């Protein structure tokens, strides 16, 4: 599998897979993640995918998508280390899977390109109604993070750990920056993004639609392309003393998140041993955290470690009875120390590698998972799940012990209940 060069800074990847009754197409735009542009860029996929020149009314567009047998055509924003990803996708049943002779897949793909390249605009500005609607939805999404205490705790610790960097921001950018976005600023961002992004189009399905890559090149011809350089992320230097933050909320369960840093970032080859370590430490039910913090000490329902490959950190999070929070933290650190001291068996490692391998092979059964797999990797050669298996199979116990030693505790974030108890109103 190789990338096909389509134009300046534009690549195509076709992943042949005959299992599905759908074709999955994604257009991925990669840009440097910057404080000044994160919010306005992140709003783009939402405004662009809500309407276009052909369908300026979002209800009419949605009706069209329903008529195309429920085609999913949309966009999202994400961050990968110090890079921002704007992803546009089209996911539609193939023509042979429906009872009528309608070229639905082709029409869904046309809509995808229309959304990205032919937006509904007027006099160098997106329309106020569209911007206002999507801006409000994003602002309410930001406000609503607090409704999910686990997600909120993770967003808060990320902000604390990377407070001086764009990476510390939410995927959407900050509330104030989103609120300040206008039709004009969004239009300028759209032109800049299309002109400067590194672009990768990915297709997963039985066949590559005829002339698809050329059509993308044609759409880009109206833009003066000057591609911005995408760099490997800079890792964080850990705090000299652990930064501790505690918030009080009206909750019954406490949340504990511990952020650990390494200075190892990079591609799959350089970071695979960290992923294996994190899985053995706090991945599946065979992991140290599950077996001890949950099963042996009954401290939590969940206690998991999640590594971030592109930025070189790891978060361990759990929901815990407030009185047990300190004990849980101590026990999580104990488990880490045990690995550092070499207190793990060949079977511990084998269990992790088996489980990781199994789930990597299963990725081939999901178009969305495969699409995500490739788009989260920015490299000159695509690394398939199978390639990655051959990398993790070489990870040794010594590598895992070394990985454990590379992590330094940087920040501890807690949500703890208010002293007062919760009351129900019981109105009728």
């Amino acid at each position, binding site marked *: 599998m190789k990338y096909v060069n389509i134009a300046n800074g534009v690549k195509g990847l076709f992943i042949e897979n005959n299992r599905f009754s*759908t074709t999955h197409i994604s257009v991925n735009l990669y840009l440097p993640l910057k404080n000044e542009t994160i919010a306005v860029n992140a709003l783009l996929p939402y405004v662009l995918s809500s309407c276009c020149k052909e369908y300026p009314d979002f209800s009419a567009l949605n009706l069209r998508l329903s008529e195309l047998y429920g085609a999913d055509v949309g966009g999202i924003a994400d961050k990968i280390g110090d890079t921002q990803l704007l992803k546009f996708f089209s996911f539609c049943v193939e023509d042979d899977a429906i*009872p009528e002779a309608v070229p639905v897949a082709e029409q869904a793909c046309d809509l995808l390109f229309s959304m990205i390249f032919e937006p509904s605009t007027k006099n160098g500005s997106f329309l106020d109604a569209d911007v206002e609607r999507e801006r409000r939805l994003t602002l309410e999404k930001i406000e609503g993070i607090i409704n999910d205490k686990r997600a909120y705790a993770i967003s808060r610790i990320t902000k604390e750990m990377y407070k001086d960097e764009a990476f510390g921001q939410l995927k959407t950018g900050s509330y104030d920056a989103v609120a300040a976005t206008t039709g004009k600023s969004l239009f300028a961002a759209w032109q800049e993004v299309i002109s400067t992004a590194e672009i990768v189009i990915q297709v997963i399905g039985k066949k590559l639609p005829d002339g698809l890559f050329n059509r993308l090149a044609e759409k880009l011809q109206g833009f003066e392309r000057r591609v911005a350089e995408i760099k490997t992320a800079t890792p964080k230097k850990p705090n000299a003393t652990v930064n501790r933050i505690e918030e009080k909320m*009206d909750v019954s369960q406490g949340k504990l998140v511990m952020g650990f840093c390494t200075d190892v970032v990079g591609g799959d080859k350089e970071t695979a041993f960290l992923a294996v370590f994190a899985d053995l430490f706090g991945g599946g*039910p065979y992991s140290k955290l599950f077996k001890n913090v949950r099963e042996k000490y009954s401290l939590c329902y969940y206690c998991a470690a999640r590594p971030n490959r592109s930025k070189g950190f790891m978060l361990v999070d759990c929901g815990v009875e407030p009185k047990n929070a300190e004990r849980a933290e101590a026990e999580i650190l104990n488990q880490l120390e045990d690995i550092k001291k070499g207190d793990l068996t060949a079977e511990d490692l084998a269990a992790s590698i088996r*489980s990781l391998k*199994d789930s990597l092979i299963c990725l081939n059964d999901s178009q969305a998972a495969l699409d995500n797999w490739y788009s989260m990797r920015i490299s000159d050669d695509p690394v398939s799940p199978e390639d990655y298996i051959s990398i993790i199979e070489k990870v040794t116990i010594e590598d895992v012990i070394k990985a454990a030693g590379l992590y330094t505790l940087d920040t501890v974030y807690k949500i703890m209940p208010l002293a007062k108890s919760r009351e129900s109103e019981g109105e009728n």
Partner: protein
Amino acid sequence: MNKQIVKSALINKEYIVNEHPSGLKIMLYPMKGFSSNYAIFGTKYGAVDNAYVNEKGETVNLPEGIAHFLEHKLFESEDGDAFAKYAKTGAYSNAYTSFDRTCYLFSCSNRFYDNLKILLDFVRSPYFTEATVNKEQGIIGQEIRMYDDMPGWVVMFNMLAGIFHNHPVKIDIAGTVESIAKITYNTLYDCYNRFYDLSNMFIALAGDFNTDEVLDFIYNNLKLPENPVKDSSSVFPNEPKGVKEHFVSCKLDVAKPLFCLGFKGENAAETPNEMQIVSMEILLKMLAGSASPLYKELLQSSLVNEEFSFEYFNGRGFAVPIFEGESDNPQRVMELILSKAQEYREKGLDERLFEAVRRELYGRSIRRFDVAESVVSMLTDATVLGYDLFKYFEAITTVTPADVAEQLSVFLAENAVLSVVNPASDKEA
């Protein structure tokens, strides 16, 4: 071995069904060329099965949350827990308890038969002791606390408590810290023996395998009970007509009020059939789906945001259409939904919109056959509710606007229950 091939000419799919002499239903859906296999060994026993009548004719009431507790405990057998066994094969394994079922599952890309053997063994090997029950109370206690802090969960159960007077679907699946404290290893054995009788259970598998081989393997490895019960029935208390409360609210740490709006129709305490499900799913999309005029109005007047959703919440013995979301004015959202339903009743349904959402439902449903997990989930739904999976697809092609219009009668103010979770910060105001 009576191997029945169930076919659909309409969507060009087929699967194998076999009924084991014990009454166990086995469904095998081959997916040629796929890497992974997905399996569920389940029982038609969930949180709603909270009481039964014993041989003496007495009603036995069970502690709330016991089906879920049993699910956690079944993972442990006398010779170690199932997670440890799956760790040797690399499979992903899990289990879940819902209102009307308990399912044990794995997905794997290799050592399929080893994994199937583990599944067949541990689900048939209960091992409960005082010590293991005590240990689980701490873990599940934390799971319950987690749900207590999830506003989406709270707003939904408050709605169900407003809809139903007695129906056990309003019971929180995990129970309460107090109710699970009443669970002993003896009650677990009683429930296991009754509700995990093979005649109440099913196996659903999807993946690239030889169906004859798999069937032989199951027959050779399934542990049979010494004394089959054959009566796994539970009893539901009588549910009066009409809702219990029209409005329920509480406060939590949320940014904006959350709402869950449910409607109690004539059949709220019944299991819906294929056509009812399809008709209601289409109606909900026509009322408030992304292409509907109402959704446009709700978005443009800032009454809802992307959290807005709806579903036909249904299962074995319950059926309630619901709308959920965040809004500064949930009451107004409810009024607009009611008035749109009234408009549809008076003026009839828009044919173009009907056809569009019918196609959407067809396309989205057909896509589910691309994923082993979804296939197993569809087979499980059909088994638990007692309908035919392929008839569901036939219903999507034969449904008419008149079928859909029949479902409109539930959307009346007298049937509505609005549950709201308000931000806690208002408390000081």
